[in-house]
């Protein structure tokens, strides 16, 4: 245990990335994540890394593609509209099986929308976003400490499975400050014999997402699916909060939304509505295993800062065993503790 220090969410992303051995950052500024590139612009040169503000999001993601091909830990970050611009590159990176970390500090859409917090990029993050049959590992932090933990985990999982990972936060978490313990952390970066490091004295490596022959491309897709199945089996993560034998109602919420929902769970219990909560931490793979035992649960309420996206994965996981209700707000507004409580009283 180290000393606890106060840190803003966006700075914590940068601090954690450097501690995880990330030595390349390519990005283009956008609110509400601009403190992150500002932080890395100062800190990357001090550790011998590269910080580069590209001419566009599209250029940035392709620089990420290049750096990952060369075997370094690399990251990009943006907010919703900027992430939309990066989708072509993300699909290429998934196809080429490269480990990278992509941060999306979400703002509200659609379109240019507004800079207030939102969770409306859920579909884009977990269901594809770019073209082709691919998946991203998607991690959703709820506190600044978890920002640190999940950025490190994101790099590790990306390397372990040779696949792009996405860190999906809401604007609110980027702005707020909380104590964090950076700990005594040493990154464990695996060897990357597939990387393009100059092939003198060895067979040449090829990194590509182009497979002209349909039979070969199908084989490649089947290999990708095997990898995704393994990730789905091994990497489901979630937190349970007061989801005990007494609980009759269950709230499902992720990210900062889950924190507001936890306050609602405590108030609901005070007035006798026995409520628990599941907070998915990995959004893909979705933590289906968390829903294995619902025998005392009468109803589930999904709460999101969107018009209802994650609720679809809850319904798939529950598969009709328990009714699933939804409450969400959009446009940078978020459900309040009292609104969640009201919804619980209504469905009871």
């Amino acid at each position, binding site marked *: 245990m180290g000393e606890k220090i106060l840190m803003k969410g966006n700075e914590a992303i940068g601090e954690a990335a450097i501690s995880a051995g990330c030595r390349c950052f390519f990005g283009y500024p956008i609110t509400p994540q601009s403190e992150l590139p500002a932080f890395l612009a100062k800190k990357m040169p001090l550790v011998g890394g590269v910080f580069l503000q590209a001419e566009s999001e599209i250029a940035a993601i392709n620089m990420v593609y290049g750096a990952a091909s060369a075997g370094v830990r690399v990251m990009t970050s943006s907010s919703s509209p900027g992430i939309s611009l990066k989708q072509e590159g993300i699909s290429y990176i998934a196809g080429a099986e490269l480990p990278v970390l992509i941060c999306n500090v979400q703002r509200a859409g659609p379109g240019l929308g*507004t*800079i207030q917090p939102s969770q409306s990029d859920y579909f884009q993050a977990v269901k594809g976003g770019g073209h082709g049959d691919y998946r991203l590992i998607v991690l959703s932090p709820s506190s600044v400490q978890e920002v640190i933990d999940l950025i490190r985990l994101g790099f590790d999982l990306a390397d372990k499975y040779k696949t792009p990972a996405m860190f999906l936060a809401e604007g609110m978490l980027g*702005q*707020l400050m*909380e104590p964090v313990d950076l700990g005594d952390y040493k990154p464990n970066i695996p060897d990357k014999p597939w990387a393009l490091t100059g092939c003198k004295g060895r067979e040449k490596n090829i990194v590509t997402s182009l497979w002209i022959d349909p039979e070969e491309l199908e084989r490649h897709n089947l290999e990708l699916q095997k990898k995704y199945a393994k990730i789905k089996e091994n990497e489901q993560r979630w937190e349970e909060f007061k989801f005990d034998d007494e609980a009759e109602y269950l709230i499902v919420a992720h990210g900062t939304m889950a924190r*507001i929902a936890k*306050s609602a769970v405590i108030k609901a219990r005070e007035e006798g509505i026995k409520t628990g909560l599941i907070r998915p931490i990995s959004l893909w793979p979705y933590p289906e295993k968390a829903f294995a035992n619902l025998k005392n649960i009468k109803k589930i309420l999904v709460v999101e800062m969107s018009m209802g996206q994650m609720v679809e994965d809850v319904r798939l996981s529950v598969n009709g065993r328990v009714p699933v209700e939804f409450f969400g707000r959009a446009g940078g507004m978020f459900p309040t*503790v009292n609104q969640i409580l009201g919804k619980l009283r209504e469905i009871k």
Partner: protein
Amino acid sequence: MHEEMMIAGFGGQGVLLIGQLIAQTALVEDKNVLWMPAYGPETRGGFANCTVMVSDSDIYSPVTSEPTSMIVMNLPSLNKFERSVKEGGFLFVNKSLVNRDVFRNDIDSICVPVTEIARDLGNVKAANMVALGGFIAKKPIVEFKTLIDCLPKVFKGTKEKLIPFNKEALLKGAEYVKGM
């Protein structure tokens, strides 16, 4: 103990800074703490505010619709936020920039001319510290002594030289409120 405090004023009055000073102090006192600034459209028209939560237990929701205490540094902020203070809560008003009384009678409130006090001390910019000193004297959510000790955590590098004056402003605010 679970405090959900809000500090509101104009941009440039240092409301975010005193929020951070409380947060740093609470951390040193080993309490759970969260600091969150308003950002985006909320800050249009020159508004600045932040929420500071200090608690002995876990802090869940990072937002509150009913702050348990509040410092308002100008009239627009009082007009905007007076209604939201939790019943039985505490409201500290900068009387120098507010030409009306507090309407609420279900909360505890005091009005202190912090801008004038700071001007008399020699720098109007220290009004935020006068307010904080006065607030803590009345509502000790952190220890006054730790607050002073934590000044170097928010005044770093070239700003270090501002510490003695800000310490004086904190003390002056506390002294004024104790004399009320």
